[in-house]
């Protein structure tokens, strides 16, 4: 009898996790970071590994920080939208290359185009933890004071850019 109970026990455990997971639904809960200063970091730049970048370099500008990786499927879906945005050069887009291999990342950008002013390398995902990265892609809108104003979990779409990101950026620039 006892051994036939195992499947049930495992299943109950699974349901517990799923129930908690539902409550944690990443799309429903706003990031606690919105309205707070963007966590500081110092990371190497993807194309020039000897150069380092800190978010303070962007002070005075309204910019997007986009978390991406070459292994991430949704990033490919999102990518044309970023390319389009970078062409209009309304605001700088910076990439946070998350848990990726440098060569894969560079090949990816060569293949699909590089919308980023520059990408920084977060190889072990440590900075991702500071930023509360749940999954790739994610995007942060950061204002001139270095405060996170908006966080998008999952791919950006043209509608989100037009309805949320651009109006907010416009308001922040004033």
């Amino acid at each position, binding site marked *: 009898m006892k051994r*036939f109970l195992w499947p049930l026990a495992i*299943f109950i455990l699974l349901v517990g996790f799923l129930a908690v997971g539902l409550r944690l639904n*990443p799309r429903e809960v706003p990031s606690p970071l919105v309205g707070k200063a963007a966590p500081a970091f110092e990371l190497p730049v993807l194309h020039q590994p000897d150069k380092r970048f800190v978010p303070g370099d962007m002070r005075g500008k309204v910019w997007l920080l986009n978390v991406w990786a070459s292994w991430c*499927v949704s990033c490919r879906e999102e990518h044309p*939208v970023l390319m389009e945005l970078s062409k209009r050069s309304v605001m700088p887009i910076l990439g946070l290359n998350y848990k990726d291999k440098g060569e894969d990342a560079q090949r990816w950008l060569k293949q699909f*185009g590089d919308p980023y002013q520059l990408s920084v390398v977060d190889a072990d995902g440590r900075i991702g933890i500071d930023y509360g*990265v749940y999954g790739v892609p994610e995007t942060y809108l950061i204002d001139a004071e270095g405060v996170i104003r908006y966080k998008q979990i999952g791919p950006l779409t043209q509608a989100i850019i037009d309805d949320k990101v651009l109006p907010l950026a416009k308001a922040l620039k004033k």
Partner: protein
Amino acid sequence: MIPEIGQFALIIALGIALAQSALSLTGAARRIPAFIAVARPAAQGLFVFVAIAFGCLAWSFYNNDFSVLNVATNSNSRLPTAYRIAASWGSHEGSLLLWVLMLSFWMLAVSVFSRSLPDDMLARILGVMGLVAVGFLSFMLFTSNPFERLLPAAADGRDLNPLLQDPGMVFHPPMLYMGYVGFSVAFAFAIAALLDGRLDATWARWSRPWTTAAWVFLTIGIALGSFWAYYELGWGGWWFWDPVENASFMPWLIGTALIHSLAVTEKRGAFKAWTVLLAIIAFSLSLLGTFLVRSGVLTSVHAFATDPKRGIFILCFLAVVIGGSLSLYAWRANRVAPGGRFELLSRESMLLANSVLLLVACGAVMLGTLYPLFLDALDLGKISVGPPYFDSVFLPLMAPAVLLAGIGPLIAWRKGEPAQLVGRLRWIAIVALIGALFVPLAFGRWAALTSVGLLLAFWIFAGTLTALVVRYRSNAKLTRSFLGMLLAHAGVGVFIVGVTLVKSYETERDLRMEPGDTATLGGYSFRFEGVRDVSGPNYAAARGALTVQRDGETIARLAPEKRVYLVQRNPMTEAAIDAGISRDVYVALGEAVGGDAWTVRIHIKPFIRWIWFGCLMMAFGGLLAASDRRYRIATQRREDALTADATVIRRGTA
């Protein structure tokens, strides 16, 4: 008016499903013939009303009724007709309706084709499926009504997601759902057998063709999805370990294990409890997949709009259905009589090892899919698991399963002959080694993983061929189920060849090309003729033209497109492919880079078609096996017996 008829039909369907499951399950438990007799007509009635509802939804889409919220959000007056109808299942609500339609279709099929089943067993089976239908119908009616009105009506719709505007959308979801939902039949058979306490070889024989049929649909559905991703997403990949892909792949793995385990239960009466457990798990994973996709707990390319209320509903439903059946299993499985004994070297133990491997592989996929969620739930940090995890975990688990599949058919039931096996194995091993070492030479580049892949493929080819020869020489009959098994196994080999050669020898180039430029890759030369603007029914596109030549001869003119759909403004890449048995030439258009120059991406993908061809072979093998004579004979005999009885009775009364 039509949408209201649809909604009304759904409400009636819910009523029928409630009555049907309550009456037929009580009837079977208390042996009330009048209640048992309800099962069959009620299942057929359920199908009629769900079909009416589905027809109403499709009609609303077809006629651009933008006063229906679902139509307004997922269609557009300029959307081509075929996609307008396919858009019926492009939304969350619509795909649930498709789910229920498939479920009621399977119920209809069971009620029509199971004349050989005892009436009380049939009542139990249809009752269990009816309960599942109750869950999904109320989910739809209470949280996701596909017929909700939008008043005042929208002037035009927001259009179907451009990713979904593809022939793949017309066929992939129905096939996939047929497979997904088809496991409900095996599940219902298992639950009915547990309730009844009649877990025997007859039970396995009854549920085998149904399980195989569902598996065939699921195989085709997954293959279609992979093929669609390959040409539609524009970067030439064919499998991404995306949570939603995994959600369909997990039931497939368990379904494969179940088919094999059912074979043992039917032929040898062994593994009964194990088979029942697999049947429960296979359907549970179909439900879990639905939960993962519909609740939005995981982010994915397939994500639809999410709503926490829906997530909670499905989770409760999961808990009741799966929790209930596993409790029943824990309570009743120990009453199952032990099966026939077998030695360590026997087909039974090969099949047992195979199903354990498949189960573990499924567990690994599930872990990778849910791991980010688990860690987050435990507050241990936030991570995402990419293809690297799956690739490194999956191969070591699948390689031994493939080795077993190659030799399993050669080993006798109960007790194999070691000496005989070693003799046959020698040949198989030699063929496999030769293939693994020499085929890479033909491609001019050797890598360890390439050889491993080819070794597995040739191993299974040689093993399958040997099994065919042995069977032919023994003068035993070549039944459809035996040939189907061999064909499916060979399909696995073909699939492996495709995967191995594509992974090892695909080449690609990213180019900046101006009209008149020529580039070469893998012996082909590509001349870029330029780009012109074209307009489709609901999109504007830049269409490139490339001439592909080999040895000075033009072999293809390719026209990759970059489309912008007018309503949603999403840019979409339409790759152009010159397909071939030994290679695909795949061209995608990138961005305009000043003047007339464009970025162009060219891939040569050797043997990639073999991946899907292998899947088709597996599916066709399954089809052969499911149509084996002995399943039909079982039906026939029973009918003969019945007519004989009837004659006797008539004579008696005369």
